């Protein structure tokens, strides 16, 4: 019997001209945005990889110079586009794409693509993620709002129940019919997405296929929750019109009101410092130290070194005092940077948790978080790369300072050559694993699961209690 209901619902929907138009539109947008996103992501990644290679080339071909001069020259790191970023560009337009790794300083990521756009463009481009998060649920609403309320209005609900079909079967049948219609749209998109992944995206990613599969599951759960919600409201509402109005209200809150409300709420709860304050604090702490992080004193450091090696003059040391002192102050700076940048990133993550928590009122927030996480375009994975780049900078500086310390004497003019530059390994970035991503996103997974289960239960209950006429 479920089969019959499902088939009838499916046929109804597919024959409906309005559905065909809407589905064709949404389907086309989905395919085009996927394709366009893929081409763009590929181009961007090629460009970034080329720039990274050039940067490495600059580093290696800098000729004979003092290692500390080389450290000041530094190298640029470019944030790679991960394999799945074509589905969801996430916060990438709003994070910088490159960072200068130089001596003494942890720099900010510069060149945010969004700074080149206009205010109108901040409305958001039509990415596959946008279509999946906003337009597909709308389609689901159009498919479900009349599923029961419509039958009741036409008087066919009474007939249907008179055939002896159970109400649960009715609900499942309706849901399957709607799912079948949606599949006409989603299966091709999934195939295109999978093909794009297999054909290849040049960016690094740990297990892109596994990430893609989980991503598909997340979106299916989201649509499932909307199907359940739509059926529940359709069974509860007195008329199809009421059902539509209520569902559209849910859609507006879900897609428009809640996401923005979360932004300002997160800023009220977890304020961030202004750029002036942040820079000022950093500068002050770098100059004077803070708490138990004290700036190494040059003279005391020299004395200690002399005592350690048991010599009288710095020139008699078997090492270059300058190199060791540079490293000592580098380590002091690192602790200051960790303290300040760490606190800032932590605040960002706490703000992210506010967004995630508000998902109890709007499932989009959970799905968006998961989608960006799996695509590798969320704030946490930006931090992951920033941390990797900073760790690379620190290793590089240590290598320069120790080379200076070990291969020269205090006061000596010393230069190193291309061999030393080549000894610094190139920046190798390993994207975080699927487990890492999901571990960060337990709250969103939980809330999305609650939405799916809650909507399903609600639909079952409401269909059970639905009035026949």
């Amino acid at each position, binding site marked *: 019997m479920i089969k019959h209901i499902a088939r009838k619902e499916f046929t109804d929907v597919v024959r409906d001209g309005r559905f065909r138009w809407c589905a064709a539109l949404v389907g086309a947008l989905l395919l085009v945005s996927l394709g366009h996103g893929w081409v763009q992501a590929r181009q961007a990644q090629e460009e970034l990889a080329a*720039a990274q290679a050039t940067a490495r080339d600059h580093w290696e071909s800098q000729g004979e110079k003092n290692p500390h001069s080389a450290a000041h020259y530094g190298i640029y790191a470019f944030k790679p586009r991960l394999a799945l970023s074509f589905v969801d560009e996430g916060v990438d337009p709003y994070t910088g794409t490159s960072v200068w790794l130089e001596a003494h300083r942890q720099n900010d990521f510069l060149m945010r693509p969004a700074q080149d756009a206009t205010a*109108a463009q901040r409305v958001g481009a039509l990415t596959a993620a946008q279509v999946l998060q906003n337009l597909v649920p709308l389609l689901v609403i159009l498919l479900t709002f009349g599923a029961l309320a419509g039958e009741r209005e036409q008087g066919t609900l009474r007939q249907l129940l008179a055939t002896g079909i159970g109400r649960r079967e009715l609900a499942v049948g309706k849901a399957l019919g709607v799912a079948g219609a949606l599949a006409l749209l989603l299966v091709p998109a999934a195939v295109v997405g999978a093909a794009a992944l297999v054909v290849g995206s040049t960016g690094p990613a740990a297990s892109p296929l596994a990430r893609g599969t989980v991503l598909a599951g997340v979106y299916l759960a989201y649509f499932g929750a909307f199907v359940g919600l739509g059926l529940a409201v359709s069974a509860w509402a007195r008329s199809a019109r009421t059902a*539509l109005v209520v569902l559209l209200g849910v859609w507006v809150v879900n897609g428009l009101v809640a996401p923005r409300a979360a932004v300002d709420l997160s800023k009220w709860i977890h304020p961030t410092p202004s750029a002036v304050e942040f820079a000022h604090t950093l500068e002050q702490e770098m100059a004077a130290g803070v708490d138990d992080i004290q700036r190494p004193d040059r003279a005391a450091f020299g004395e200690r070194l002399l005592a350690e090696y048991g010599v009288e003059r710095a020139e008699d040391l078997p090492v270059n005092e300058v190199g060791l002192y540079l490293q000592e102050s580098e380590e002091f700076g690192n602790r200051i940077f960790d303290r300040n940048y760490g606190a800032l990133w932590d605040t960002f993550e706490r703000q992210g948790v506010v967004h995630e928590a508000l998902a109890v009122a709007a499932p989009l927030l959970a799905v968006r978080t998961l989608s960006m996480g799996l695509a590798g375009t969320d704030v946490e994975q930006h931090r992951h790369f920033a941390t990797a780049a900073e760790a690379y900078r620190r290793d590089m500086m240590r290598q320069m300072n120790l080379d200076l310390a070990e291969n020269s004497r205090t006061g000596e003019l010393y230069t190193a050559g291309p061999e030393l530059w080549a000894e610094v390994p190139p920046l190798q970035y390993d994207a975080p694993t699927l487990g890492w991503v999901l571990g960060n996103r337990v709250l969103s997974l939980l809330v999305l699961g609650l939405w799916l289960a809650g909507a399903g239960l609600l639909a079952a209950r409401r269909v059970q209690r639905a009035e026949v006429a």
Partner: protein
Amino acid sequence: MTLRTVLRNEWRLLAADPALRVVLGVFAVLFVYALANGMAWAGFQERTVEAARTGNAERVEALEQELADIANGGRPSSPFRDPRAPNVLGGARGARTAVLEPGPLTALAVGQSDLLPYYYDVSIYTNEATFQQNGEVENPLNLMVGRFDLAFVTVYLLPLLVLALSYNVLSEEREQGTLALTLSQPVSARDVVLAKLAFRAVLVVGLAAAVSLLGILATGGFGSPGRVLLWCGTVTVYALFWFALAAWVNGLRRSSAWNATALVGAWLVLVVVLPAAVNFAAGLLHPLPSRVEMITAQREASNDAVNQRSELLARYLEDHPEMAGGVVAEEPGLGALAWAATDAVNSRLEEVTAVHDARRADQLALVRRYRFLSPALLAQEVLVDAAGTGDARFARFQSQVRAFADEWRQFFVPAILASERMDAGVLPDVPVFSFVDEGPADVAGRAAVPLLVLGGLVVLVSAGAAARLGRVRGAD
């Protein structure tokens, strides 16, 4: 029965309808939340600007102090940071902070002010890369989603309030069977709809304007009455567009349910789908090259420059005789050589930027052309512009900072080339940045076309509605 009767009855009906009271209440809360957010942001920016100014003043004071100490026989704190050297006094140590005051109505529309920098430290080393720096410290996630401010509530949600209040002004009368009765009075369907919508428009626009004015009052925005007028005018015209659309749909003589569906569909397409589609098309047709090549170009230029500074200096002096002013030290100093290298890098950066900006202009032209497809895009642009947080004001600031940086260089570079030393005596003559804000005419000039188009749409749709409604008789 007169229009006054219609209005009085409408008031009674609305007052008696609990659903409408709830809708209006919800919107009042949304408005107030949006205003509170905007005011918090405006306050934050005020404090930041103040801090930037204080930092600047402290820096200049320290510099003056050190120069005075040196004049009294003291020693510079470090030979590399000797403030008497023009490349130090005009460099990062002596940099002046150029500040853009927050837009007069920032509390109403955050606009681009959370993304674009609103202060720069200007020195002789200011170049195109300077303008690539980040703005305020902000969570990228929050930047991506955008703020819940009055501009957002007005552009996205206000139409829904309008539609909720007016989708059934005529169809409901028909469905209740009261239309024939109403129209048997000496009043036409057009007048009834007009009266009902006028009443609702006063309610909606009044609510929006009251909250806006409250925000303006609280943040001192009345200093720019032109902007306030433009803001309120735009909100009114935009709301009227949706009322006109509702009137037109009511004139089609369909059921309330059909009206609701059609109007929500129109909202979806005009407010949600089209703006995104325009941006999508812009990205597709005119993809923007990333700024990545700027970094590579800068690096290559500085690598080259370091190796051929003497040649560069000769070429620079040929190109810029005004900078040398006839005084070049016999043996070019290190400062002069370094300056030649800096200038070569800057020129290369300007080349790369010019290419990039040309391609960007193509994309912006497309976005600007197709914004006419969506009243929401038009309204958003004018509102943000009126608030003083739009792209135009930031672009104006940037170009004035560029000019100021030029002036700054004119002041210090000749001394660098001549290997001169400076003292506290030059400080009063150092160029000073003061932002020449746009006047009401500038803002109005930019808003004219979008507002005219929006107004034209209102007239067009209203005329269509009037024609449709003129044909409504009580009998149908």
